[in-house]
């Protein structure tokens, strides 16, 4: 493969253009003075100003951040436990069932997850009186559930490649099973749990469909507000919001990259 043709590099470049051109245009037109998003009307930051004065948008952003933080934390706890159970307990009743239940949400269409959870919440409210109405709580439960499936996958692969004799060594030196989990297992898989938490956070922040089903009055998430806006057509303050999100992601990735590089250098 020393003499490579032109075909591969060209298609790869076109592929990356395809991936990034829309994102670049989002950013560029967020600084456009014209309301007609795709017609250039001069440089301006007025849409950022408008965004910061949009109370509905800010409230939704706050709701989304709360939901994402809580869901990611819950999902990390549940996901870590189920990954641990699935990799470390060789045989128990219902193992197959649990395996199925943690993998299915990964590929289940969102509309089905959203609808079925909503129906559950309604049925629970009728019979148990909880959760009273839909709102933040129901969104957090829904997000925790499907995010936990993703965390499980990440934690599971880390647990599988972890040398099990580390845990045995700690047992051998006199630590009980709970102690071993907190002293050895958790610190060793911590990096995977951090990326699992971040993934869950992003997924929760990103979700529109499930939240639309299970959310209630006063708990509109950011994607729900954006969706109702862009359904009516393009609007430049959405571009401004997109640019801010892209900026945050870019900064986070850069920091993560630098940390990773430093860690690699140290070891």
């Amino acid at each position, binding site marked *: 493969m020393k003499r490579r043709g032109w075909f591969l590099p060209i298609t790869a470049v076109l592929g990356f253009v395809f991936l990034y051109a829309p994102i670049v245009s989002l950013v560029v037109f967020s600084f456009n003075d014209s309301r007609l998003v795709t017609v250039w009307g001069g440089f301006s930051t007025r849409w950022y100003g408008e965004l910061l004065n949009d109370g509905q948008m800010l409230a939704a952003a706050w709701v989304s951040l709360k939901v994402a933080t809580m869901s990611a934390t819950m999902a990390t706890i549940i996901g870590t436990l189920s990954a641990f159970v699935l990799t470390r307990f060789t045989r128990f009743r219902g193992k197959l069932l649990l395996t199925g239940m943690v993998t299915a949400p990964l590929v289940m269409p969102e509309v089905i997850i959203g609808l079925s959870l909503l129906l559950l919440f309604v049925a629970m409210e009728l019979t148990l009186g909880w959760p009273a109405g839909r709102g933040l709580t129901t969104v957090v439960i829904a997000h925790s559930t499907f995010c936990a499936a993703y965390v499980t996958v990440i934690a599971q692969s880390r647990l599988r490649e972890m*040398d099990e*004799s*580390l845990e*045995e*060594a*700690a*047992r*051998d*030196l*006199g*630590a*009980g099973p709970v*102690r071993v989990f907190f*002293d*050895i297992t958790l*610190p*060793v898989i911590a990096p995977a749990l951090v990326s699992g938490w971040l993934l869950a956070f992003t997924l929760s922040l990103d979700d529109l469909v499930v939240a639309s089903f299970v959310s209630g009055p006063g708990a509109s998430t950011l994607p729900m507000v954006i969706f109702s806006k862009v359904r009516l057509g393009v609007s430049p303050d959405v571009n401004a919001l997109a640019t801010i999100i892209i900026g945050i992601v870019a900064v986070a990735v850069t920091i993560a990259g630098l940390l990773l590089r430093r860690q690699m250098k140290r*070891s």
Partner: protein
Amino acid sequence: MTSPTIAANTRPWLDPAAKPFISIRHITKRFDDVTAVNDVSLDIFRGELFCLLGGSGCGKSTLLRMLAGFEVPTAGQILIDGQDMAGVPADKRPTNMMFQSYALFPHMTVEKNVAYGLLREGKSKAEAYQRVAEMLRLVKLEQYAKRKPHQLSGGQRQRVALARALIKQPKLLLLDEPLGALDKKLREETQFELIRIQETLGVTFIVVTHDQDEAMTLATRIGVMDEGVIRQVGEPREIYEAPNSRYVADFIGSVNLFEGKAGPAAPDLMRVETGDLGPVVVPPVEALVQGQNVWLAVRPERISLERHRPEGRANVVEGVVEDLAYGGHLTAYRVRLDNGRVISVTQSNRLRDEDPISWDERVFAIWQPGAARVLTK
């Protein structure tokens, strides 16, 4: 520290009244339908360095893990110092283990790794770290206390693993292929280091290994395992010189095996009729019936080669040197006998022989009657 009670020069296993320190009684372990360990019984004495030797999948590691408490026996009983280990979890057993992968905690320093077991016992930090310092001195790693495992060489890691396993002064130390990850030269040095430490502390060691040289060097006794059963237990010399079966004879070192039929019983020397060598004279064997099927095991280094037929000697066969491999301190020959059978012979190069036996020479192979071991299994 307890004063060492060393069994290095005493041999308690020869004394039928001696009380074993570890008793393994009819232990069986099945995984699904695979029997990993099949009805093994074994007594090990205080201060021994016992080697379980066998190929991969012979059940030696499973046996070790049952002693440590990581696997529950399907049947049978394990006693350590008179105490039944059934139902005792790994963290409550008076044993410690050195893992094949060393299993050093990657997120802790050397010092913390070694201190881990003491802190779990509820020792104070001050006391624990003082003991850690002593232990690190014993394994010559004082200056590496603050390092993380990934900053150490393979040999250093091995010593940390050893220190960590020894610091709780276990009644029994289990070592799973302790030298397996080291290169050849380091392995030879470490073998003697291991013996020195074992003798200093007087801890009973059980070592699992697939390397027969390692077992020979380290062990007070060796248990040869195969397909879940122990084929023979004995001192290294006994295992090599007096194997009890074709399997053990063939597994340890190399050997020439000949099938034959026992001749009539005799007071000083008896005869065995073999198909390949004709009649062979061997020392008398008890409980052998005339006409019984037996095998003769002759180690290659016990056979010598001569250019001329020696007069008045028994056990002489004639053949042609088919191949030879010069190995410095010795030369290995393959001699094809007239009936087509090939035997291996090694000759030590004690003298600078100007005219060594070479390819295609006609030679006579001779051995003492006592060199052949008669096997019935």
